Each structure stands twice: as C-alpha cells, then as structure tokens.
C-alpha cells in the first residue's frame, strides 16, 4: 500500500544536513504535517490527520486541526506517522571500548564522557526511525558504568545529543559475562567473581560500602548544619556516588540478565537495599518469573527472537515479550545492535506473530514503553499535545515489512530525509573524488619540501671541538 509522495520543496529549508545548522532560534517555528495516518500510540489512530508543531513541541493533533498561516507544511498523504522509536539498549555513539572491563565495579565511569556525536550509527539508527536511545556501558562487570540517554540529533555536538532532563542510569550485569565465563584465556587474569553467587556478592558488598559512604556524608552534612565549622568534608568517591544515588532513587538501574534465578537474586537484593530496578535488560527467561518482575515493578527490555547464542540464552522463546506483557510487566524491545536498531519496528511486529499482541501493543514495545522505562514518557513515546515532536513518517504501516522511514523529526526538526539522503550520496561521492584527485596530484608532484631521502650518517670531524 505504498503511494507516491510529493515532498514539499519548502521542506528542504528545515532539513538538517550533517553538520549543518538547526532551525533558527528565537522566532516561533511552526510546521504542519497534513493528511497523515497518525499512530498516536496512546490516543488511537487518526486517519487523514494533521500534526502542528510549534518550537519543537506538538501543538495540536487531530483530524480537524487548523494549520496556522505561515507554517511549513509537510504533505504526508499516504504516509504513516508514528512517535520516534526509543531504543532502550544501545551502544552507539561511544568512543573507544563500551566496557571498562578491568574491575567488577566500575560505577565511576560513564559513557557521557566519551559520547561521539559523529558515529555514523547515529545516522543509521535515525534512518531506521530511532529518535532516542539508552546508551549503555557493556556487560563485563557486575556493576558497570553510567549510561547516557540521548536523542539522535545528528550534526549536534556531544552535549547536544543528551536527552536533557532524562534520569541518569547505570548498567548492572548478571550471569556469564561478569563472571567471565567466556573471558579470553592466556594472560587474562581471573577476576572475582567467577560464579553467580560471586556476582551478587560483589553487588551487595558495593552497596554496603555505598551505605557507609552515604552515612559519612550525612554525618558531615549534619555537623555542618549544627554549626561545626571545623568539620572536614569526606573525600568524594566517584565510584560510590552513583550507588548512593541508586539508594536515594536518583539513578536508574539497567540490569543485564538472562536466567530466572539470577533475576530473582537481583530483585531480592534490590528489595533488601530498598531500591527498584528500572529495567531488566535481555531478561530472556523473564517469562518464567514475570509475576515476580511485575510485583517488583521492574521494566523488562528484551530481544524479539534472539536465541541460543550462549548457554544462558538456550531457554529463550520469541513469545517472551508477549508473555511478560500479559502478566503485567512493562516490556520494551531493544536492539543492542547497530544493525537491528534500523528496523526495531519490524522486531516489535514479531510480538504479534509470537504471542498475539495487538498492533497497538506491539508498537508500544518500541515507543511509550521504553519511554516509561527510561523516565522520559512526559516528553516522548506518543503523539500528544505538549510532547516533543519526535516523529517518523513511514511509507507504509510501520508494522509492515515494506515500511520505510521517509522523514524523521526530532524536536520538530527534520534530521533524516530520504530524498535528501539520496541527493547527498552523489554530492558526497563528488566531494570524495575531488579530494582523491587533489591528494593524487599533490602526491605525485615534485615535493616542495626539501629532499628528505635518508642519507648515510656522516661523522663531522671537529664536531667535538665545538662542544
């Protein structure tokens, strides 16, 4: 059901080309998307609807909405508009290793420090309809590094990627990875822990330390409050600070997990220390303990159908997302991959085949559910007045394998445009050829610098006399 679409020429004016300027600051920027099938996610589907975007926010949605004069119009006849996809587990846009794999507790490190806004995977995710991502540390350590929730604002600097206002989080990991079951042999030192009971011990020890650290600071703050001017502030410990934030409910735990037993282990530990796990990541055996997960209140972010790629993934079933959803767990489907994040809409669709979710439920898996899991649901995840205009215009229904994103908007700005992309390919090819030709011509020319051919060392008689 793909129909031809005429792109409004005025659109180009607001399109962000890589590295180019975003929309003008100051004056109100109004855009209207017209004649679209609008999948709002939370408020049903609107045929031939209009979305008015003002200053990056959705100002109006509906079948009968007046388009303000002077608005830039996008004719979306035949197109489907959906909220931008939110990938709750991503490792894109990271400079260097995603693991600080040296220690079992590396809560001092954070991916925000090494965000790389020029990672092409940002653009590729964008082209697949992803507008926000939870960029996580890897799973090598029981307590890994801090995350960064980003918007895929291609062309902005590292700061400009950050999803402002998103709750900070941290990666935990259970099972085979932190116990180093598959760690390289040879000179790789065996590291504690080597078992699942060791993993949970490492996490418990860390929280015991964090509680003591918290108590030291509280005592200091109380002393200062009581007027003690000689009180010396305790030394700041960047490893323990994020753990105190977890205890105080200010930082979300995203826990890589597979097996039912380790999931229950962590739930018990979290309840012992009185915090809530924000998301269990992967959670392939989540369907076995869905009630316990739901009772704890953790979200579950899983794969559509990845299976048996390691020992702890043998019991995976593609029905996992649907089964957990049926038991009241807040479920999202993530990519964990710079390939899969380009078609998360199709991954969500698999939950209809395996488990019988409805269209709306399937779409929730990659939109409002991950938004809720990351605590950004007031801003994104559905098409509602007041939310950020993070939108994908698909050529077909996004649950169809034929759906191709035509345009992707973040904060009302077009960050991906398929027509533009196709044009840019030729431009880039020409630029590249020009640079190659230039390099070749200067490379073969007679060097302008003095001859640098190595010559035999000559000893200099009398040199010693000069010293």
């Amino acid at each position, binding site marked *: 059901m793909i129909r031809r679409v005429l792109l409004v020429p005025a659109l180009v004016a607001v399109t962000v080309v890589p590295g180019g300027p975003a929309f003008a600051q100051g004056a109100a920027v109004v855009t209207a998307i017209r004649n679209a099938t609008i999948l709002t996610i939370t408020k049903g589907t609107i045929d031939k609807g209009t979305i008015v975007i003002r200053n990056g926010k959705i100002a109006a949605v509906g079948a009968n909405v007046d388009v303000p004069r002077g608005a830039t119009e996008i004719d979306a006849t035949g197109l489907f508009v959906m909220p931008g996809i939110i990938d709750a587990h991503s490792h894109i846009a990271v*400079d260097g290793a995603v693991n600080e794999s040296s220690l079992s507790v590396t809560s001092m490190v954070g991916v925000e420090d090494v965000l790389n806004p020029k990672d092409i995977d940002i653009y590729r995710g964008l082209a697949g309809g992803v507008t926000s991502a939870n960029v996580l540390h890897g799973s090598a350590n029981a307590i890994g590094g801090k995350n960064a929730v980003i918007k895929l604002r291609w062309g902005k600097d590292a*700061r400009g990627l950050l999803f402002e206002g998103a709750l900070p989080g941290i990666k935990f990991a259970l099972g085979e990875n932190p116990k180093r079951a598959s760690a390289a042999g040879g000179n790789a030192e065996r590291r504690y822990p080597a078992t699942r009971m060791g993993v949970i011990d490492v996490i418990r020890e860390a929280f015991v330390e964090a509680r003591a650290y918290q108590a030291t600071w509280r005592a200091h703050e109380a002393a200062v409050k009581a007027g003690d001017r000689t009180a010396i502030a305790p030394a700041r410990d960047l490893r323990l600070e994020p753990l105190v934030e977890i205890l105080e409910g200010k930082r979300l735990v995203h826990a890589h997990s597979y097996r039912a037993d380790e999931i229950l282990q962590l739930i018990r530990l979290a309840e012992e220390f009185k915090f809530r796990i924000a998301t269990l990541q992967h959670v392939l055996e989540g369907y076995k303990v869905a009630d316990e997960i739901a009772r704890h209140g953790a979200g579950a972010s899983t794969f559509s159908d990845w299976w048996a790629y390691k020992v702890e993934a043998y019991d995976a079933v593609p029905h996992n997302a649907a089964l957990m959803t049926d038991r009241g767990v807040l479920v999202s489907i993530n990519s964990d991959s710079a390939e899969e994040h380009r078609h998360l809409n199709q991954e969500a669709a698999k939950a209809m085949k395996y488990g019988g979710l409805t269209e709306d439920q399937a779409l929730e898996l990659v939109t409002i559910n991950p938004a809720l899991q990351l605590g950004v649901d007031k801003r994104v995840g559905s098409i509602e007045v007041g939310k950020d205009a993070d939108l994908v215009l698909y050529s077909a229904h996004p649950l169809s394998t034929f759906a191709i994103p035509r345009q992707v908007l973040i904060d009302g700005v077009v960050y991906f445009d398929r027509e533009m992309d196709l044009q840019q390919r030729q431009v880039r090819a020409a630029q590249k050829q020009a640079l190659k030709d230039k390099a070749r011509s200067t490379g073969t020319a007679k060097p302008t610098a003095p001859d640098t051919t190595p010559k035999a060392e000559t000893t*200099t008689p009398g040199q010693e006399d000069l010293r």
Partner: protein
Amino acid sequence: MFHVWPFKGLSEEAVVVIATRVRTAAMGVACVVGLGAVAQTQPVAPIAIRNARIVPVSGAPIDAGTIVLANGLIKAVGARVDVPAEAVVIDGSGLTVYPGLIDALTDLGMSAAPPSTPGSGAGQGPPRPTGRTIRGPQDRPATTPWVQAADEFRADDQKIETWRNGGVTTVVTAPRGGIFPGQAAVVNLSGDRREDVVVRRAAGVPLVLTPPAGGGTFPGSAMGVLAYVRQVFLDTRTAAEQVRRYEQEPRGKARPDHDRATQALHAAIQAKVPFLLPAASEVQIDRVLALSREFDVPTVLYGAHEGYAAAGRIAKARVPVVVSAKWPEAPRDADPDADDLLEVLELRDRAPRTPAALAEQKVPFAFASDGLPGPGEFLANVRKAVKAGLAPDAALRALTLDAAQIYGVQDRLGSLEAGKIANLIVVRGDLLGDTSTVAHVFVDGRRFDVPPDSGAARPTGPGRGPGRPGEGDRR
C-alpha cells in the same frame, strides 16, 4: 675545523682565528651558565653578526643590522649597534638571523623506557610493569606526575644534533608512558650537561587520555581514563586541604596519606603550571575544553588536527594550542584502491589549515614535531600550514615567541631582544620559503656550524625511531 665557512670576505687565516676565539667564547659561556660567578674570571669574546637581515619576531625586521652576543645572552640588536672592540665579527651579508626555533612538545632526550616506578608505564611505552595489583583509582595506575623531564633529560641524545642542525634550538620535552607521564621541561639544545641546558623545569603537565595498552587493568578504556583523571583531580584538592588542616593542628587528627602523585599535581596547580590535554578531533577538542572547565586548571590543548573546525570554541575558552605538525596522511603502504571515508579524506586535506584557523581567531599556538623524524619534515609541514593560509610571520611567531609564551618563558626566549638568551639561527634564504638552508645555529651563545649535507632537511636516519606516536592519528 669547520666543515664550511659561509661568511663572505674572510680569509682562511681569519677563519682559524675566529674559530679559536669562538671556542674560547663557548667555554666561557658554559662557565657563565653552569657556574655563575666563576664566569667573571674567564675572558669571554663576544660575537657580533653584522650586515645581516635580522628578524627579531618581537619587532619589525631590520634589513642590515647587527646583533651582539655575549655571555650566552643577546647583548644588543639593531640597525646601529656598538660592536665591542674585542668581539669576533661575522659578516652576515646575504643571510638572515631568526630566533632559534622551539619544538613545543617532543620526547627528545627522554629515554625510551618510562621510569620504572610501580604502576607506571603503558600507554605509548612498553606494557606497564606487573607486580602491583590495581584495585582502582586509589592505586594511581600509570601515574608519575612527579617525574621531571628536567631531571631525566639526556643531553647526549644523538638526535639532538640533528634537530639543532635543522634550526631547533629549544624543545619542550616531556616524559613518556602512562596517563600522567610526568612534567615537561623547556630545554636548550646547547650542551652535554643536563645542568647547563634546562631553561625551565615543570613547564607543563601533559596528560595522555588514551587507555594504556592491554586493557587488563584499570583504566582499560577511554571512559575509564577520563573517570580516573577526574578522581585524581578531586583527590588532589582533597589531599591538599587535609594536609593544610593537619599542618595547622596535627593533634587529634589522622595523619594524611603520603601520596606523591597528588602532591606533585597540587604543587603544579599552585604554581599555575599549564596542563597539556590531548585532543585531535573536533569531538575530542570539545571534550577536553569541557574537562578544562571542570578541572579549573590552566590548560594547553595539544594535537588539534581538526582544530580548523573548532577554532572559535577554542578561542572562546582562551586555551592556547600546541598543534601537532604531523599532519594526518595516508599510510605510505596504503592500498591504492582503498576507499577511505570522505571524513578521513577531508581531515587529511584540511588539517594543515588548522594553524591559519587558529590565527584568525587569535588563538595563541605553537608547533610540535609529534614524532616526525627530523627538523626537515617538521619545517616542511609548517610550510604546508603556510600554503594552507597561515601568514608566514604568524608561523614564525608560533615557532618562536608564541611557543615561549605558552610555556611562560617569553621573558628569556623566543625573540631577538637584548637580555634574552642567545638562541638564534642564521639562514640562507627565507626560513619558510622552499629553498632555505640553516647555516649556523647559536644556542646559549654557543655557536654550532651546520654540516653542508645536513641542512634543515636532513632526516635523522637511524634516529628515525620511536618518537611520540601521533595522538592525532588515533581517532
């Protein structure tokens, strides 16, 4: 005695006489620099170069001027200068005198192996010594900021002569290996004794933000290094405060740890020594500018190949730059059919424009050889920056006075002014032109004649060695 005698109008006889007297002068200078008061007892023959074009950098060029050197210092410079009767007079007709060039970051004179202290090493050096378990930041991995290049400098490094023959009279040299390898020193390439050549110790505290090789111990990733460095800066300030309070009243207080890493860093911060932070790409530049604000220390950025894209932000941050002159290039053995990314090709094309972009934004900058094999390659690459739009006089300033300014030695180095250290080069042709050759080099008033086949261009040959791996090429 001398390989070549380029000065016109002097007989062979005169040459021998001058050479002898120069040698006497040089010995006298060594005494002045090395032994202070003793120098007064030695007769020292001043040197005067007459009728030369003089480019003082600090002022307008003088077409036919005279410069007088005595006791290792510039005694006078100008169009009309009194030449002392006892001076050795050199006719500089047809030659140009410039201040000696400064290589603003190198590891010249540093031994290949990093100092063998626990927890140090790695990075660009050999793998770090094992034997001490690194449990976290508290074990100060790859951290030796107390190491002073001024203490480690090997004045007998064979490469020194090569660099000096090419016109480099001063280097800012830094220890290698680790995240905090140690502190840089400003060193004159003038003698055999470390004691004679150090102009300034503790001139800068370089950091290396790439993870040490191996990755087996903390920190093993770029984000780990940044987290570690952040903790070290916090600990430095905490430790200093603890020591201060303890010294005020030790009774009843726990004795603070003895931590030479934070002590050395605290001393550097107190002395306002600049921290040298590496950044090649635009992303890294933004990252390092943010770190500089966070750590609140005087900062010099080094590397900066993509500085052309960030010059405005660098200017706004008021951070000087040591530009790596090792421009990114395709590997010599590259597959001719290799399809490089447009971004890679652009970087190779535009990197030499960085100095011009910095100059436009009035960012002070200098050049670092960054592992280039010799001064010929170094100057050839500076010429590429000139061809890419950098004004020749700005290039010259970057190689002299601006480099001195960045390291706080502009009051003694970097220009031809009376009272400054007598570091100067005598050049045939325009230094930044294509056909210049360095004829003579004076460092600390000592005269070094350049063998004819060495010139500014000769690469180091066997010295073409380890060098500092280009930070710039990493990513």
